């Protein structure tokens, strides 16, 4: 091992340049061609500084983040530019040299901790692995150090949690364990790649706080990659906005939040400003009364749930994962017949089981899924996908059916060329539009939207939400909108149902639910939503610790 790759025990001078990327260009290989992914970017990161990379998917933020550690994904290559880490040229460094650096001086925290941990080994073995491999510490020291890190990251039972397997801890805990793993060699640089995207807002707060503290304590430089501006505002000193592999804007966090100069950056703010005026209605289209439901009769996933959905309005169901909001949708659609309670539709009881419902009832309740990738059959064209409900429910065939498909495509703002496309030939937003068209084709009264925007980029999300609102105006359709995103709820709902652990905490008009007085859980949920204010996390943590004391 050469001296300059040993974990730096030399004093870490805050403010000296750690990473310097100049004129970086990266090409990716797909469809038998090389496409530019990064089109000439510069990045300078000083010791102890946290820089946020933000942009939509395909902006090149992950590719840039990985390039900062001298890594390119398979199918990508660096075509121009330089990456220098503490004076070491990473582009031309040998694999052995890079391997010495990775884990010891540069480490990486991935989006999905559950996919990054090996399920067959205990946490402690995996957290201490890189320190042992790099010969930084012996086993006892590494374990003691890991326990210390667990404590600093506020993991419960820091002395014993290392003995657990990855599946025995929660997602938020696992993400913090992964941060501990990244920290084990006290690296100079950590790359956080969307580390909280898969977490619930209430968990996200804890993880963000833990990460921020530990990065500050060890004076580590970090690159924080995310698509969520409010999150990056809490974490980063400086933000770079990327789009299509180009830099759109770069500024200090506070300056950028106060006055973004570019239109694109401004548009990233826009979705948070979309807001529908709530309307009250007592004409109930569908009501769920005292419903219990469980999988295989053991765990009650829905516990005495009562929800009323007024006709032509949007009811948003919010809650974290495991709150039973998707199960509610399954109970309404008949996929999971409730064990107790009634579901009535237009004043009549709905048969509990899907098989007992007639075709016309099925037609009236349609569903749109979270992931259009799995909700559309990859072997069917748009004509088949949208045409089937037209044929199945309305008996349309031939030219009449085609005409209606084109009309539906027009309603979802796609042109008629899409009729012969396969799902694989469309973007995520376009696919989600096709899903909407498939639901609309049945001319339904209620559409259940299960997290329909959560897999999409912010700007695409906004377009889809606008489209849904436009369609509601035109067709008077009722939405039951399941989501975990409070910004989305604010944007589209008339009424809100808050769920927690299978129970309804609260149902009411948007203005009632989103304004005090709150039930305790609603308050926790609402206060956990990151705000576009760099001091939000600090203030929140102070408030919470004050309340606890």
């Amino acid at each position: 091992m050469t001296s300059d790759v040993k974990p730096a025990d030399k004093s870490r001078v805050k403010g000296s340049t750690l990473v310097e990327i100049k004129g970086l260009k990266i090409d990716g290989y797909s469809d038998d061609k090389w496409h530019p992914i990064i089109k000439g970017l510069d990045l300078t990161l000083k010791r102890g500084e946290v820089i946020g990379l933000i942009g939509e998917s395909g902006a090149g933020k992950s590719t840039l983040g990985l390039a900062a550690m001298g890594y390119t994904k398979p199918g990508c290559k660096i075509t121009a530019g330089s990456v220098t880490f503490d004076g070491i040229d990473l582009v031309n460094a040998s694999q052995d040299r890079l391997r010495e650096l990775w884990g010891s001086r540069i480490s990486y925290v991935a989006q999905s901790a559950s996919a990054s941990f090996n399920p067959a080994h205990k946490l402690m073995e995996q957290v201490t692995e890189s320190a042992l491999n790099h010969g930084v510490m012996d086993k006892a020291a590494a374990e003691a150090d890991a326990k210390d890190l667990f404590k600093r990251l506020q993991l419960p039972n820091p002395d014993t949690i290392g003995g657990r397997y990855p599946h025995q801890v929660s997602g938020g805990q696992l993400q913090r364990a992964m941060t501990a793993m990244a920290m084990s060699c006290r690296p100079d640089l950590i790359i956080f790649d969307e580390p909280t995207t898969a977490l619930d807002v209430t968990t996200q707060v804890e993880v963000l706080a833990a990460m921020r503290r530990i990065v500050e304590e060890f004076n580590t430089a970090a690159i924080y990659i995310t698509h969520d501006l409010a999150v990056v505002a809490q974490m980063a000193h400086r933000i770079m906005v990327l789009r299509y592999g180009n830099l759109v804007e770069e500024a200090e966090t506070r300056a950028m939040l106060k006055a973004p100069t570019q239109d694109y950056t401004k548009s990233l703010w826009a979705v948070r400003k979309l807001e529908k005026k709530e309307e009250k209605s007592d004409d109930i289209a569908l009501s769920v009364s005292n419903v219990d439901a469980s999988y295989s009769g053991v765990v009650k996933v829905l516990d005495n749930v009562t929800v009323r959905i007024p006709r032509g309005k949007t009811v948003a169901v919010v809650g974290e994962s495991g709150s039973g909001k998707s199960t509610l949708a399954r109970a309404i659609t008949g996929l999971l017949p409730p064990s107790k309670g009634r579901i009535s539709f237009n004043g009549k009881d709905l048969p509990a089981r899907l098989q007992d419902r007639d075709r016309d009832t099925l037609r009236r309740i349609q569903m749109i899924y979270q992931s259009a990738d799995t909700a559309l059959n990859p072997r069917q064209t748009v004509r088949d996908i949208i045409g089937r409900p037209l044929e199945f429910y309305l008996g349309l065939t031939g030219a009449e059916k085609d005409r209606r498909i084109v009309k539906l495509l027009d309603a979802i703002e796609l042109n008629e060329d899409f009729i012969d496309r396969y799902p694989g030939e469309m973007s995520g937003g376009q696919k989600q539009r096709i899903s909407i068209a498939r639901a609309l084709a049945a001319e339904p009264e209620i559409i259940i939207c299960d997290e329909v925007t959560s897999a999409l980029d912010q700007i695409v999300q906004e377009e889809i939400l606008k489209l849904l609102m436009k369609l509601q105006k035109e067709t008077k359709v009722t939405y039951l909108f399941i989501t975990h995103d409070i910004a989305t709820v604010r944007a589209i709902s008339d009424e809100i149902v808050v769920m927690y652990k299978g129970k309804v905490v609260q149902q009411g008009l948007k203005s009632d639910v989103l304004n005090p007085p709150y039930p305790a859980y609603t308050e926790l949920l609402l206060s956990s939503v990151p705000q576009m204010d760099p001091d939000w996390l600090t203030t929140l943590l102070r408030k919470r610790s004050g309340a606890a004391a």
Partner: protein
Amino acid sequence: MTTENVDIRSVRTRRSFMQNAWRALKSAPPSAIFGMTVIAVYVLCAIFAPLIAPYGEAEVVGKAYAPASAQNWFGLDQIGRDVFSRVLYGARNTMGIAFLTVCISFTLGGLLGIYAAVTRGILDQVLSRIVDVFMSIPVLIFALMLLAMRPFDAVENWFGLHGTFSQGVKTILNLIFILAVLDSTRVFRLARNTALSVAVQDFVEAARLRGEGLRWVVLREIVPNILPPLIAEFGLRFSFVFLTIAALSFLGVGIQPPTADWGSMVAESKTLITFGRPQPLIPAAAIALLTVAVNFVVDWFLHKTSGLRDDK
């Protein structure tokens, strides 16, 4: 809005299936082209064997074990039949039987596998355990045992068809039936597993929510998505069955003389190798070449349809 008078014919037409197939063929790697050429030649030989072969399948044309000459390219066998002609006829028998066997095993295993995956429950459990039991016994040994039991004789008795088929035909029917059943267990597993991974996708749930019946769900939603691995498996199973038939014939329980078959031809002439004569290698080479060719094609097909990419 302009859509009222939209002309549907203006919608861009897609490339037809044939055009797509042609494009794919043109971009095939050399190994796949080689494989396809070999298979095409074999199939042509099998179909036109009576026209190409200079002599008949069981025709004695000279002295036993005569070496290769201008008239008999590969020489004569142990009773003086032309080896070249018998290799051509052998293509017909070995490949024809293998093809028929694989077709039956795919119909049986594929249908049951998909059905088990879609309905799940008790039927799936029962079928899967039966398949496990079948698969725990080595194919060749199991096949030998079943062949000795001659299950087709029982079928013949049930249906009162006694004496309808000649002994040779009955042997072949036994062979096809036994190998098809044994092979269908592997097809069942593949079909069930791939169908299961498709059946849990949202689009299948969406079809169920729409109220579609089992037929639609299976034929329109699931089958198109599992077809590529099944087709590739068809190629692989074909080579396995074909090798098993050759092996059984070599052991003397497969295709019976005087029907020409590569496995038994190797067996009949195997002693010649000790005299330095290459004759037994000819049918053996025919077997090997076809197996390699099929694997090349399957490999390419799987690679294309599974979207695998070479790591660059």
